[in-house]
């Protein structure tokens, strides 16, 4: 923050005292001012000579906007007139309103002028053909200010009812995109204070003087609260969440504000006679000036000039406005808007510095070249382009320094994701980044730290600290809690017994683990443990008996639930990716050797911490090419599951015996019935596998992560992908037996998987009575499915006898009852030969002869 810089500037008397407005033409050559008298003045940049006067205009002008060819001025008599810059004469009356015009905004291409008057309707008029008018009617009160998005496809409207209405103009019929409440103050249209919206030049955010509660002292003891627009609040265009604010700069209402052309600086003027220059990135004031009652201020499009007018009708052209020590900020290319968490921001298009000099064209001189014919705006890749490449799909490719399309749209030979950029320097393998299962990235100032079947943990960034809320599904069993978090915890786990948090190293303090049990029979004993300096937490997990932490130095640290360090070892595969745990079992994942696709293989290790045994040692996580692990968790029966980026849920079978583990797909969400029509566009965010169901959150409309309010959990039955998607059952009651057989075959495979899992579990643990009876029940079910399959085979014909016999051979039942029943089925369909064979098989089994 610097002291008041003062270079006394002489105001040029442009107009008689009164509200005076000004604008630059986009090429920066001319500056146009309009005020309370019936003359508009056109100043030429860089010349101190007398301005050109345009005399045949209205009095009491309230707005002026310009393109390189014409300018338009709105006046209190309700007209918006267009003047030619070639002849400096009145060209036409663009639109007539019944009430005073309050603001005029011009779309970046100059084709549309939005006009706000004291009428309720905002008119958007085509400047070439004024019979084409769009009407924006959603607002309930007159509109004070208007602002076009840099792409021209949105219009932000500051209404005098205190709401900001954002319309999308990309369709013929304007659509209200968002009503932003609580951003601006409700100000009358003729008030001096401003509620103007300014879009950040990169288009991802907008800013406005916000309604802040200021304190005004009256008398000695009494204090009165007033509402004043003192701060400038930014809002993201993606999720309309509040972002950074330019706070505590002004002591009076803000009257004018403007971004520098590259968005790196912000100038604001207030009723406190101050003109402030802010740095966007840090929201710090870098220069203060004193100029009273500024009405309107504009930056020169390319040079270091700020011009402003005051209510005395004076014009100030402030050359070298940005102090020389900060001049590099102004020279930078287009800057992205500062967000609280940069993770939710898309990369702004890379625009080099020479793009700011729009006039300099790479190729000139070819007579009738396409550029000359189409004009400067057609071929340029600037932020004024209508197509905004918001998803990076590449339909608005960048133009390189020579005005050609770059070759970035071509895939590098290495893979789909990697672009040529990476190929230039030496080749590097691609790592799987580390992640915390069940968490989401920041969006706005919120994120979920953990979301599972027990409950969820979410945090809100309050600038200096976070507030963490823990909510449970079972409201009776647990009590929700909420606390202020000065350590900025960024990972959490929750289970039935407690909540585990971890925070990254912050301001020299080491990373820390915090465990908070939900309730104990003694007083609650939460504990914190600090990690060694230089170690960051990559993932944490919490089981019924242990706390597991993987760190950036590739250590796996295991603590007991009471904070005792239990084991520390270095993970063999590095860098670590994530971990999960269930009772005594811990699964860790890390990057292994590089695979054929230039990406590291993901390796996992499962071990029993208590017995110090390794179940699976550096085994491969089976992923399809280009696939990533979205989440890893243990099912409620304690089997490891992964959900990958292709939408397949896999479970690990026979994982307790070393070398025997294999990944079995349980569900392919792309083949779900609900997607069969092809109408739905949705993805699934995995939560858990419990009670033989896949619990997930359905995300619609291209969302990647759940957001607030917490969406409902959905559950899907497993369906092993065996055949093309099953025809919907509602199509007819007389379904073909082929479909039925497919269904039965699927349930046969699925049941054999669950049976195998259950058998493993019972063999490895001291099984409860319930588990044993469950096993018997499942075996019976398994045999019943086989019986149904047998019935289908028998119905199909005599020649299917061999297959039928094979089906009977699969039966689990040792008592012979099921085989007897199978014989009866064969008998019912009159397959006597088969019946005989089945009886033979049964007899063999009874005497134990079929062991081959």
């Amino acid at each position, binding site marked *: 923050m610097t002291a008041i810089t003062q270079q006394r500037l002489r105001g040029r008397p442009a107009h008689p005292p009164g509200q005076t407005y000004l604008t630059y033409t986009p090429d920066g050559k001319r500056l146009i001012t309009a005020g309370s008298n019936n003359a508009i003045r056109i100043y030429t940049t860089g010349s101190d000579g007398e301005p050109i006067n345009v005399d045949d205009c209205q009095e009491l002008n309230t707005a002026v906007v310009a393109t390189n060819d014409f300018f338009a001025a709105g006046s209190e008599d309700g007209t918006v007139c267009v003047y030619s810059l070639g002849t400096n004469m009145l060209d036409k009356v663009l639109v007539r309103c019944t009430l005073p015009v309050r603001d005029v905004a011009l779309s970046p291409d100059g084709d549309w002028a939005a006009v706000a008057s004291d009428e309720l309707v905002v008119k958007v008029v085509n400047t070439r053909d004024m019979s084409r008018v769009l009407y924006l009617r959603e607002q309930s009160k007159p509109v004070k200010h208007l602002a076009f998005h840099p792409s021209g496809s949105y219009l932000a409207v500051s209404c005098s009812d205190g709401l900001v209405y954002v319309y999308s103009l990309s369709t013929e019929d304007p659509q209200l995109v968002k009503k932003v409440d609580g951003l601006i103050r409700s100000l009358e249209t003729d008030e001096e204070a401003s509620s103007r919206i300014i879009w950040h030049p990169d288009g991802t955010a907008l800013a406005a003087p916000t309604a802040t509660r200021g304190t005004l002292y009256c008398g000695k003891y009494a204090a009165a609260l007033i509402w004043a627009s003192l701060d400038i609040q930014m809002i993201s265009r993606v999720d309309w969440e509040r972002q950074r604010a330019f706070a505590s700069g002004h002591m009076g209402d803000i009257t004018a504000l403007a971004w520098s052309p590259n968005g790196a600086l912000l100038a604001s003027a207030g009723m406190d006679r101050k003109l402030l220059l802010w740095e966007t990135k840090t929201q710090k004031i870098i220069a203060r000036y004193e100029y009273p009652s500024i009405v309107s201020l504009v930056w020169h499009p390319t040079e270091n000039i700020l011009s402003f007018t005051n209510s005395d009708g004076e014009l100030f052209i402030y050359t070298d406005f940005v102090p020389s020590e900060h001049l590099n900020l102004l020279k930078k290319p287009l800057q992205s808007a500062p967000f609280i968490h940069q993770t939710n921001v898309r990369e702004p298009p890379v625009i080099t510095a020479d793009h700011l000099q729009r006039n300099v064209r790479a190729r000139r001189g070819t007579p009738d070249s396409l550029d000359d014919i189409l004009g400067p705006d057609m071929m340029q890749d600037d932020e004024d382009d209508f197509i905004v490449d918001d998803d990076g799909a590449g339909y608005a490719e960048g133009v390189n320094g020579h005005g050609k399309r770059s070759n970035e749209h071509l895939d590098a030979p290495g893979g789909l994701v990697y672009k040529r950029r990476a190929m230039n320097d030496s080749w590097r393998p691609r790592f799987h980044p580390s992640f915390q299962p069940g968490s989401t990235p920041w969006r706005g100032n919120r994120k979920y730290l953990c979301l599972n079947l027990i409950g969820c943990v979410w945090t809100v960034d309050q600038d200096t600290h976070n507030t963490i809320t823990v909510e449970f*599904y079972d409201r*009776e*069993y647990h009590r929700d809690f909420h606390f202020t978090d000065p350590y900025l915890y960024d990972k959490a786990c929750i289970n039935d017994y407690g909540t585990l948090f971890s925070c990254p190293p912050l301001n020299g303090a080491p990373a820390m683990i915090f465990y908070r049990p939900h309730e104990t029979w003694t007083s609650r004993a939460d504990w914190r443990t600090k990690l060694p300096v230089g170690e960051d937490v990559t993932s944490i997990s919490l089981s019924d008996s242990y706390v597991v932490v993987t760190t950036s130095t590739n250590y796996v640290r295991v603590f007991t639930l009471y904070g005792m360090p239990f084991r520390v070892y270095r993970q063999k595969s590095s860098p670590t990716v994530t971990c999960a745990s269930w009772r005594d079992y811990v699964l860790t994942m890390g990057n292994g050797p590089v695979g054929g696709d230039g990406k590291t293989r993901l390796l996992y290790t499962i071990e029993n911490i208590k017995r110090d045994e390794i179940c699976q040692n550096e085994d491969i996580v089976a992923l399809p090419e280009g696939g990533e692990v979205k989440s890893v968790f243990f099912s409620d029966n304690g089997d490891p599951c992964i959900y990958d980026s292709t939408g397949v849920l896999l479970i690990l079978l026979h994982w307790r015996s070393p070398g025997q583990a294999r990944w079995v797909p349980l569900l392919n969400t792309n083949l779900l019935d609900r997607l069969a029509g092809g109408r739905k566009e949705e993805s699934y965010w995995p939560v858990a596998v*419990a009670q033989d169901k896949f619990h997930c959150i359905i995300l619609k409309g291209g969302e990647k992560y759940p957001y607030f309010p917490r969406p409902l959990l959905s*559950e899907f039955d497993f369906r092993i992908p065996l055949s093309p998607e099953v025809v919907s059952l509602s199509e007819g009651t007389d379904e073909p037996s082929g479909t039925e057989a497919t269904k039965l075959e699927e349930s046969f495979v699925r049941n054999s998987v669950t049976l195998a899992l259950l058998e493993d579990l019972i063999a490895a643990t001291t099984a409860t009575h319930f588990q044993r009876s469950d096993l018997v029940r499942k075996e019976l079910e398994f045999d019943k499915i086989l019986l149904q399959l047998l019935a289908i085979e028998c119905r199909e014909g005599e020649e299917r006898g061999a297959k039928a016999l094979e089906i009977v051979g699969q039966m689990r039942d040792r008592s012979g009852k099921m085989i007897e029943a199978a014989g009866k089925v064969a008998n019912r369909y009159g397959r006597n030969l088969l019946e005989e064979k089945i009886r033979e098989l049964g007899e063999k089994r009874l005497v134990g002869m079929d062991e081959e």
Partner: protein
Amino acid sequence: MALPSPPGLTPLEIAFLCEMEMVTVVPRQRLEGLELLGGPTKPLHPPHRTSLPLWLALLLKRQRRANILPPPWFHPTALTSILDFERSNTDQFTPPPPLPPSPPGTATTSPPFLSSSTADAPDGALPYHWLELGEILLDAAPDDIVDPDAVRRLMRDLREVRMAKMRAGVAVLDGSGMVGLKGVGGMEVSEGRAFISGVVDGLRKIGASREQALREREAEEGDDAYEDIAENAGEMDL
């Protein structure tokens, strides 16, 4: 029981029967399985979904121990498409949900025992108890429903469109015509009963003399034609 009650079930009775419908709930609290006369319920474990009879779900909802998941056909988009179907097909009602292909038990083919209002019900068909179930859900659990105001409006539209169709069907009742009632819900039958049976009775009174004449002639001619008339009368007797 001095007053003779009108024939058929009263709306209250139908609403009572509707409460036997199974709906899906997301419990907020644990509850052991209950041994009820209608069969045991599954134990409730938040946040696992469970199917419960509507009356129990309403009880839990009122005590804030559960959230009711509205059936898929109760979503504004589904109702809109059903309404479109009703409007474009003037001669038939939306067909009822298809019967499950192979019912696990044999007795579960009539409406209260079919799970046509759980979260996995089909979304393009109105079940038998759609009207009363919808009203009950809108009344008891508006916070669990997506856009309850739109749903309320759509339900009203649907009801009016379908009632209009039923009344239009009455026009053909005078002679040998029939009204197809496939897909008509329980409450709608109950509402329409008074009107339709009144119309049919009135028509019968008007046609009484003709019938009398017919009967006399038939007495003369013999008893061949008698059976036809009896059948006609039987059809009209709603």
